[in-house]
């Protein structure tokens, strides 16, 4: 009797485990299979890309990729992209973080208006704002600079940075900081030594967003830069009119650096005290 119950329980656990593992695998496949198709098409000859039925195995035809390797200006554009995305990342966190601290630790008049301003920014499409911005940039000399473009991308990224870190911040008890103050920390040291490690995952998430947003942004980049084109503006805005095999290869080339970046920072996505210590 007890034996069967135990066996049953063990069975349920075993089945639960199988179910768990298979759903993890299934969800991984759900994400990876479409990417795999992109890769297959990138590594196929133009004929294969256009044929039916499609092959599900890459034939490692490097023709499409070689075309882009010979494309003048690719490296400069890549450098500009990294530069702009890096600046966007740093700026959005630097100017976002103090605001987040204020939002989560103080009650002040105008707080809700401020939050609404932040949200508003996120709800407005850049292509419509690009004209007045470009006029301003041409007049002030910010036009065609990586810094100028990074400023615009920061407006896109800052709301993410603020909202995400804010939601995590408010999850950290003020008592923790107060304890640090009684132990002789100032507001600043309490922040850097106690709070910062806790919201690191949030900052990492914001950094990823900032980087990816800037990396993939086309319109402002196309309008606001001329010689200092980013890779996206350089490649992407003309890809949709290009032959299919080049579309895929170009799309693939754009995806890779962003994936490398996410890979490099992925481990900071976990908090220091929650699951990480388990």
């Amino acid at each position, binding site marked *: 009797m007890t034996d069967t119950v135990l066996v049953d329980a063990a069975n349920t656990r075993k089945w639960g485990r199988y179910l768990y593992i298979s*759903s993890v695998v299934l*969800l*991984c496949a759900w*994400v*990876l299979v*479409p*990417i795999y*198709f*992109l890769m297959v098409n990138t590594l196929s000859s133009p004929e294969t890309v256009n*044929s*039916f*039925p499609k092959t599900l195995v890459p034939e490692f035809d490097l023709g499409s990729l070689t075309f882009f390797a010979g494309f003048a200006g690719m490296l400069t554009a890549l450098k500009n992209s990294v530069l702009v995305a890096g600046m966007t990342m740093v700026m959005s966190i630097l*100017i*976002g973080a*103090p605001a987040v601290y204020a*939002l989560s630790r103080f009650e002040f008049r105008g*707080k809700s208006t*401020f939050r609404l*301003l*932040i*949200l*508003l920014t*996120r*709800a*407005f*499409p850049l*292509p*419509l*704002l690009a*004209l*007045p*911005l470009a006029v*301003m940039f041409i007049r002030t000399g910010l036009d065609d600079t990586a810094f100028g473009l990074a400023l615009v991308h920061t*407006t896109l990224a800052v709301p993410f940075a*603020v909202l*995400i870190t804010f939601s995590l911040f408010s*999850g*950290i*008890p003020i008592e923790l900081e107060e304890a640090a103050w009684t132990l002789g920390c100032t507001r600043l040291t309490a922040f850097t030594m106690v709070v910062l490690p806790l919201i690191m*995952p949030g900052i990492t998430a914001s950094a*990823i*967003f900032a980087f*990816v947003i800037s*990396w*993939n942004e086309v319109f402002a980049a196309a309008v606001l830069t001329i010689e200092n084109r980013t890779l*996206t503006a350089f490649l992407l805005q003309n890809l949709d009119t290009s032959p299919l095999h080049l*579309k895929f290869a170009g*799309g693939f080339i*754009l*995806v890779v650096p*962003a994936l490398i*970046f*996410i890979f490099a920072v*992925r481990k900071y*996505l*976990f908090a220091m*005290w*929650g*699951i990480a*210590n388990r």
Partner: protein
Amino acid sequence: MNARYLPYILILPVTLFLCVFFLYPFVLVAQQAFTTGSGFTFDNFREITSHWKFPISLTNTLLLAAAVVPVQLALALLMATMVSRMGKGRDLVLYIWTIPLGISDLAAELIWLAIFEQSGFLNTMMSGLGVIDKPVNFLSYEHPGVVFLAIALAEIWRATAIMLVILVAGIGLIPKEYYEAADVFGASKWKQFTRITLPMLRPSLQTALVLRVILAFEIFAVVAALGGTLFPVLMGETYTYQFDLLNSGAAAAMVLVILAISIGFTLIILRILRVPKGASI
């Protein structure tokens, strides 16, 4: 430092920044919505709302958001809880699940079009398995339901990761002691999820939902690729006004309509998922 002024000093940089690079151009654009050459007018709003496509694109946008966002929320929650309990391989699995974050709109639209088009991967696999004997046209005006489903799937694939990352970071902040205590009292995993994870995750859930809903009203690229002419959405119509019809007044009006909808939904979400004062941990 005076604590009364401190918050204002802290929000000053971001406020100044947004005033220069967002509010200033925004006001210029918003002005256009209310002018047509002769003073203040609502003509632009009348023009866009009276066009026969407006109600269709409005319904489409809302329907798509209503279909996609809840699924994404559930999926992101599921993935976040799964990954947080994981031992070995957690890094790798989380990395894989966040990959779509780095995929640009154009790459996403290419991939999903290559899957669903008549000579695409889905047809290849189905005919390989012998399910069908000749390729099916999934994206045709004859089956609007299938087109809708394809768009929804692509959107779920593309934009779930954004919620996942926020939720993973949020779950990390829940003290493990809570779960240990729950284990001692023999609470089931499901009970732990509904009684600990969900309530403690409220601030992150709020953020994830607000961001996702706002972005859902802005979707355009993937919809345009898969839905073609069949599935107009508000943002697509906005770009038509701005760049094809060269009518920036109407485009500005259109964007203000989208903005109003976004703000409306944001306020609703903030209200429902209100974080009670002092109750956060």
